[in-house]
């Protein structure tokens, strides 16, 4: 009996703010023997339970992550239910959601809330005028207590985290736990300690794959989670901040937005922080159906570098003959001593481009990186340390590639992988620091595209605002 009481407490503390499988609630094993306890607690009105795989309008889907058909695996003779049983392969790393399993959530209010002092700000920096305006608008929206969607359009290097502090502080002071989410684990690992420092009285926690079970299910006043971990949170938050500023290339991640929708309480303010809002978001912001604030100035107050569109001719043919397009040679000469990030559309172009570079100037120190490259971090590190002149890369690039005084070039910018969003992000790599606030950005192409022109137009527009 006593043990069961203790177990009940455990269940309620793990399940607050969340929706979990029995195997997650009892992560220490003993799932089977505790199923009756979950049944009992459900009957007593403490828990809700729902099938982990559900059928909606004849379509089967995972109730946790929303994945449908190609991601539902099948066991013809399940040893739990004895029937044909489906399970979700898409969120399998979070525990196995199967047809005969259930997701449990709390039917009562959370056991823990942020205390009064948690909102005290331990950060004494100053916001720029642009940041302050945006921050005030965010706080006002939250105070109004309605369901808001808010677009915070902040250019790369605008100092977005600091802009969010007043809003987070407001929510905590009102006793509301706060969720920040981002597609990337490294961003979680970087954000969490900064929030800890900013809110010394609050409990903060970063949720990402590979953490110990105790920390996986702990309580936090301010939580920072990756997309997958966010799937564990359910109808709990009145303030969710989706940070996609440095999420590149995972912008407008549908999974993340689905997960954020699940984690939101009935009344919730959802803030999208992005450097590259979609056309739809821009239209909605312009029409007023989406609340928004634009911070078009970088923290150092200088303009974003405007990309040049440069005709490179049939660059593929030239590269195949180990020749660099003339326009690119001129760019590299102009860059002189400064380091260059050179983007190519596909992995298969990395080596040929490197060859052409070396043939052109043998003393140029070059390296290539792409997503599967084993030596990726080593090479990025070398670039950062200045022991490489040109880093040739595909669009999938470490976000950590914020490097002082780097110039950016795209070869083959007409390729479909270079969307407006991708191009703006690439342009945003240049001139980020206040020591070197300007930078060269060129898009070399064999026929300019709408995406290229839009990227340039958007950047010019951002520079015009606030000036």
């Amino acid at each position: 009996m006593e043990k069961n009481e203790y177990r009940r407490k455990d269940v309620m503390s793990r399940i607050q703010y969340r929706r979990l499988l029995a195997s997650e609630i009892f992560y220490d094993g003993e799932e089977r023997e505790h199923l009756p306890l979950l049944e009992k607690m459900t009957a007593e009105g403490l828990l809700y339970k729902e099938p982990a795989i559900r059928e909606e309008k004849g379509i089967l889907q995972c109730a946790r992550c929303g994945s449908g058909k190609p991601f539902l695996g099948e066991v013809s003779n399940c040893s739990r239910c004895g029937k044909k049983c489906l399970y979700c392969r898409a969120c399998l790393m979070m525990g196995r959601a199967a047809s005969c399993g259930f997701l449990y959530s709390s039917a009562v209010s959370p056991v823990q809330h942020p205390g009064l002092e948690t909102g005290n700000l331990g950060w004494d920096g100053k916001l720029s005028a642009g940041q302050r305006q945006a921050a005030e608008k965010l706080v006002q929206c939250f105070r109004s207590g309605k369901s808001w969607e808010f677009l915070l359009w902040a250019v790369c290097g605008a100092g977005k985290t600091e802009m969010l502090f007043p809003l987070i502080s407001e929510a905590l002071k009102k006793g509301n736990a706060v969720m920040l989410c981002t597609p990337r684990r490294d961003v979680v690992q970087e954000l969490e300690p900064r929030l800890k420092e900013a809110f010394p009285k609050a409990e903060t926690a970063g949720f990402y794959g590979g953490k110990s079970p105790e920390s996986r299910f702990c309580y936090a006043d301010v939580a920072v989670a990756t997309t997958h971990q966010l799937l564990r949170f359910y109808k709990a938050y009145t303030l969710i901040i989706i940070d996609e500023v440095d999420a590149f290339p995972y912008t407008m991640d549908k999974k993340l937005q689905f997960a954020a929708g699940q984690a939101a309480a009935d009344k919730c303010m959802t803030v999208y922080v992005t450097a590259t809002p979609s056309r739809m978001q821009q239209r909605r912001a312009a029409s007023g159906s989406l609340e928004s604030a634009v911070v078009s100035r970088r923290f150092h107050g200088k303009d974003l570098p405007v990309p040049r569109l440069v005709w490179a001719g049939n660059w593929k043919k030239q590269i195949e003959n180990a020749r660099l397009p003339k326009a690119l040679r001129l760019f590299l000469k102009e860059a002189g001593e400064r380091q260059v990030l050179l983007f190519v559309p596909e992995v298969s172009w990395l080596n040929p481009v490197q060859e052409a570079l070396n043939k052109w100037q043998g003393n140029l120190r070059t390296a290539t990186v792409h997503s599967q490259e084993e030596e990726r971090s080593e090479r990025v590190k070398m670039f950062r340390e200045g022991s490489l002149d040109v880093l040739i890369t595909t669009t999938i690039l470490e976000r950590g590639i914020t490097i002082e005084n780097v110039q950016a070039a795209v070869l083959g910018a007409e390729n479909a992988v270079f969307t407006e969003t991708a191009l703006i992000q690439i342009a945003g790599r240049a001139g980020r620091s206040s020591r070197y606030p300007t930078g060269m950005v060129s898009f070399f192409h064999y026929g300019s595209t709408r995406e290229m022109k839009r990227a340039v137009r958007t950047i010019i527009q951002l520079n015009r605002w606030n000036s």
Partner: protein
Amino acid sequence: MKTYLCLVCHEPLKQPPGWLNVFQSRPPLLCTGCRDLLEPAAGERCSICGHPDVIKRCSDCAVREKRNRFPPVVHRSLYTYNPFMKDLISQFKYRGDAELSLIFADDLFKLARREFPGFHTAVPIPLHPTRLWERGFNQASLLGQKFPAEELLIRDGLSTKQSKSSGKDRRDNAEGAFMLKHPADWSEKHILLIDDIYTTGSTIEAAALPFWEAGALRVSAVTAARALKKAPL
């Protein structure tokens, strides 16, 4: 056109045009990148346990042959248990990704027919009932889905209750003991055991025991993965 995803990395399969032709009635399960990470356990190997890079017979098998009352179980694997295979097997068995069995099911059947033609019945190594409930399926049964397999064994979790077997056999029973579900006469029959991974061979030996005791002529085994000894030979 329908896009197919690699079963392991979930990336869309890139195929040359016209790849889905009369010879290939269905798309491949794995992308070429993942497929290349599988290392076939082929070439020179121990004639009994199938350990690669061994001429004739490995030392373990020689020792076992002297010690055991019954003939050795001849075993063959599809792939070596390299880091990729390790991830694959753990995703399959511990995370419960049953679909991954499809990567091996057909080839395992082919391997068995090639190496052990004429076996009478195929028997997946069973799990303890508790394990079976936790996992939702028996990985060995799924690997045997293309065989005319029969679930003839039950697994006893209490490895200490081995009063019948001799002291020499007992140490092989750390994996638990196996019993026939129904007593039967297996004399003159060739039994084929199926499991996911072959490490020391003790599980296979333990599962073969009731068949030997029921008079089996031969017991062989196939598995998806073969762990390599640190210091072979």
